[in-house]
């Protein structure tokens, strides 16, 4: 069996960043396996701009952003294979993949970076009530049909979910000639960026109904109408608040989930983010298997996916040089107000600063973010406004972590 020092599964933003970083740190025997017929992952279909403000100090569209990394992959001579879906990986890092040219192949990796992105929650996952008609589709799939292939999935559209994908599609569909009737959001606030509410909904006079969801879809063959209802604090439909909306399409933008079946199949411990438990080098609990990007936790800014990919690539490079020390490990737990923290484990022998990434449970203003260990406050950072959809990053210097003796909790405290 062929030996590949580092196999990167997924050639999107996270995977390319990991590969580039590893190559720069001396890993030559590496290979990117990408299941689609181009590199770039989901950015291929994100033709809107808003990418690259941090990474390149420019505002780029998705295809422009990904091209910068594809160019680097080529410049650095990083080998990659397209149309190559990984079928499975083993705990001893045998990677089996399949493509029409090489057939069904297994390679022995010494380290693996999983960068497989995420998938969309769909009608079944939310148990959407009503008929089984066509015209119900997730935002990402509708985006693919539209931006990659050039087909509209509907003429009169209702969007469920005001996350950024739903908002971006509201604008996109309108520009291409569809009528977006409204956006419904089950929470009492929108999960999308304010700027997207402004430039995707307000610009086109598309109403946003909060605390509202779809209580029934109706259609024989194709969708004919949806019933929207308000929901109470427990997200139960409130009788008497039904609004009937004739439409031929319901776009679902109801959440993203890390795609980690390859890790689940080998029993890699998972976290509440639905991605793997990782340490500060993005290493899972199986030494030498790393993960980054949306398959670790769902990001909202691709520049930070690139950062995280670089971190995983760096970690993999250290691992391959036997430089990843790993004895004194502590856990990092989210506590009041914080829904999750990445990484969930930190190695106290590590010599580098650690950036912690987390999200809050609900919108808050004027809070302190506290890092505490054994009743000692290691760090206290003031934040004026935090919302659940925004991933917050706080870096803790090496010195701050040097004296930690026990598990760290991250939580919020009002001023």
């Amino acid at each position, binding site marked *: 069996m062929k030996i590949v020092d580092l196999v990167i599964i997924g050639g999107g933003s996270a995977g390319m960043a990991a590969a580039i970083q590893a190559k720069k740190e001396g890993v030559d025997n590496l290979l990117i396996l990408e299941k689609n017929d181009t590199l770039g992952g989901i950015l291929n279909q994100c033709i809107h701009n808003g990418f690259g403000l941090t990474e390149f100090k420019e505002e780029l569209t998705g295809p422009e952003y990904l091209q910068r990394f594809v160019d680097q992959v080529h410049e650095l001579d990083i080998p990659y294979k397209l149309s190559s879906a990984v079928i499975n990986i083993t705990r001893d890092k045998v990677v089996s993949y399949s493509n029409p040219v090489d057939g069904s192949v297994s390679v022995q990796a010494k380290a693996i970076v999983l960068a497989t992105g995420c998938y969309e929650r769909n009608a*079944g996952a939310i148990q959407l*009530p009503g008929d089984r008609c*066509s015209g119900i589709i997730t935002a990402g799939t509708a985006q693919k049909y539209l931006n990659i292939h050039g*087909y509209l999935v509907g003429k009169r559209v209702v969007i469920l979910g005001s996350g950024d994908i739903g908002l971006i599609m509201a604008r996109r569909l309108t520009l291409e000639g569809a009528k977006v009737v409204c956006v419904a959001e089950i929470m009492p606030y929108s999960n999308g960026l304010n700027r997207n509410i402004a430039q995707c909904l307000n610009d086109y006079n598309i109403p946003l109904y909060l605390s509202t969801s779809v209580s029934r879809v109706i259609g024989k063959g194709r969708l004919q109408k949806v019933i929207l209802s308000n929901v109470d604090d427990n997200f139960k439909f409130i009788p008497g608040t039904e609004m009937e909306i004739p439409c031929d399409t319901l776009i679902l933008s109801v959440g993203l989930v890390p795609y980690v079946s390859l890790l689940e199949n080998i029993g890699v411990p998972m976290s509440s983010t639905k991605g793997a438990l990782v340490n500060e080098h993005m290493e899972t609990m199986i030494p030498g298997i790393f993960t980054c990007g949306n398959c670790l936790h769902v990001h909202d800014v691709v520049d930070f996916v690139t950062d995280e990919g670089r971190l995983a690539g760096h970690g993999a490079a250290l691992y391959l040089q036997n430089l990843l020390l790993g004895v004194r490990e502590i856990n990092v737990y989210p506590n009041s107000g914080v829904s999750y923290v990445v990484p969930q484990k930190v190695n106290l022998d590590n010599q580098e600063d650690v950036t912690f990434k987390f999200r809050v449970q609900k919108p808050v203003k004027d809070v302190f973010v506290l890092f505490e260990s054994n009743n000692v406050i290691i760090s206290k950072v003031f934040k004026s406004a935090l919302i659940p959809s925004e991933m917050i990053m706080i870096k803790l210097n090496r010195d701050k972590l040097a004296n930690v003796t026990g598990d760290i909790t991250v939580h919020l405290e009002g001023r």
Partner: protein
Amino acid sequence: MYDVLIIGAGITGILVSRELARYQLNIAILERSNDVGNKTTSANSAIIHSGCDPEPGTNKAKFNILGNAMFDELTKQLDVEFRRNGSLTIALSEDQLKALDALEERSKINGVPFKRLSKQEVLALESHLSNNVTGALFFPTAGIIDPFNLSIHAMENAIDNGVHLFLREEVIDIKKKVSHYLVKTKTGEYKSKIVINAAGNHADVIAKMVEPIDWSIIPRKGEYFILDHFAKGFVEHTIFPLPSDKGKGVLISPTTSDNYIVGPSSEPILDKDDYSTDGPTLQSVRQQALAMVPSIPFGKVIRVFSGLRPSSSRHDFIIEYSRSDSRFINVAGIESPGLVSSPAIAQYVVNELVRPLISLKEKSNFNPNIRPYVHLNKMSKKEREIFVKENPEFGEMVCSCEKVSVGEIKDLLVRSCPPRSIKGVKRRTRAGFGRCQGGFCQPKILFLLANHYGVSPLEIPLDDVDSPILTSRIKEVK
């Protein structure tokens, strides 16, 4: 002029057509939807029941027992996934033990093998059962099956043996002539000496086109959950509660695709085409299931669906000549245990009902075996490497969730019962069945189908022809 025309390509109609295909006859089968086995056959618990449950002396009991024994050979001939994993009917209280005794008696009368288990014994077999379990009956002959491919492969085999299938044909009128029947559909006309009505939930509508009838079909809806793949062996057997007059109750079972199925509910409805699901019913199914297996991870639900049982007002299968003419045969009310009974029903219909009507000369070249399908995941690594090297399209994945390749989909398209819709591909290969439910693979499959059939992508439907996915093409070059 056909010798036999079957109305309805559900599992019953399909197996009748296949059984008839052994003989030198002109056989046609009409189906109103866009695929075979597309309704009740594809929306049920996918269980090959043991036969313990039906009332002794009924058609249901008779055909369940006969049918159950036929599945090993049938699934081998048709290359269909089938596993005799055994079923457990559990009692959840001391009171329920009496009902368990009654079921034990019934099993003895029906001649169904069983083993009575104590609480400790059943918990040793299934560690995730509720601690409220007081005892159980184990039925080793019960099994799980892939109902989609059972019907599709059976239809393919029947067509390969000469049966003519006409899809998208809805029967609107039947006229009895002197020596034949004139069957009118929305688009055409068919003549046949004998007509077999296997029209499922619409069997009473069809039967009434010929004569007044004293029975009716009231659809009984069952709603289900499908769970994603997770820890194997969570539940190995099919778990039933004790049956009630509403039916067998909510079951929990592994499926042949390594998913888990939970359901069904049971409510009679009026609209014979209402396949909707609703929150309160699913919530009730969930509660009943959790009472049996408290740790079912409902967070892993990837799909909910409903099926309609064609329940007859006689509460039993109606397999008989019409009153006015033996050349019109009703095979109606095939609700649970319909799936397991279907091969036995088919044999009965042909040998007991059709044989007296027309000369049955055996075909010398009848082949009950279909051309085997390619099962990459059953091959050894070496076998797989060699196969894919020689057949490169089997190396290109379309559905990453369920590991389905371009080659497998293209193979479907050259067989005699090809898919014509996204759902058709999904039922045959499981592409789109996984956790992303087609989010990634649907566009690929849609364009593959459009390319093969030489039609615009706008015409590829989700299921029936009135369910298009795309509405228009943008940026038309002027």
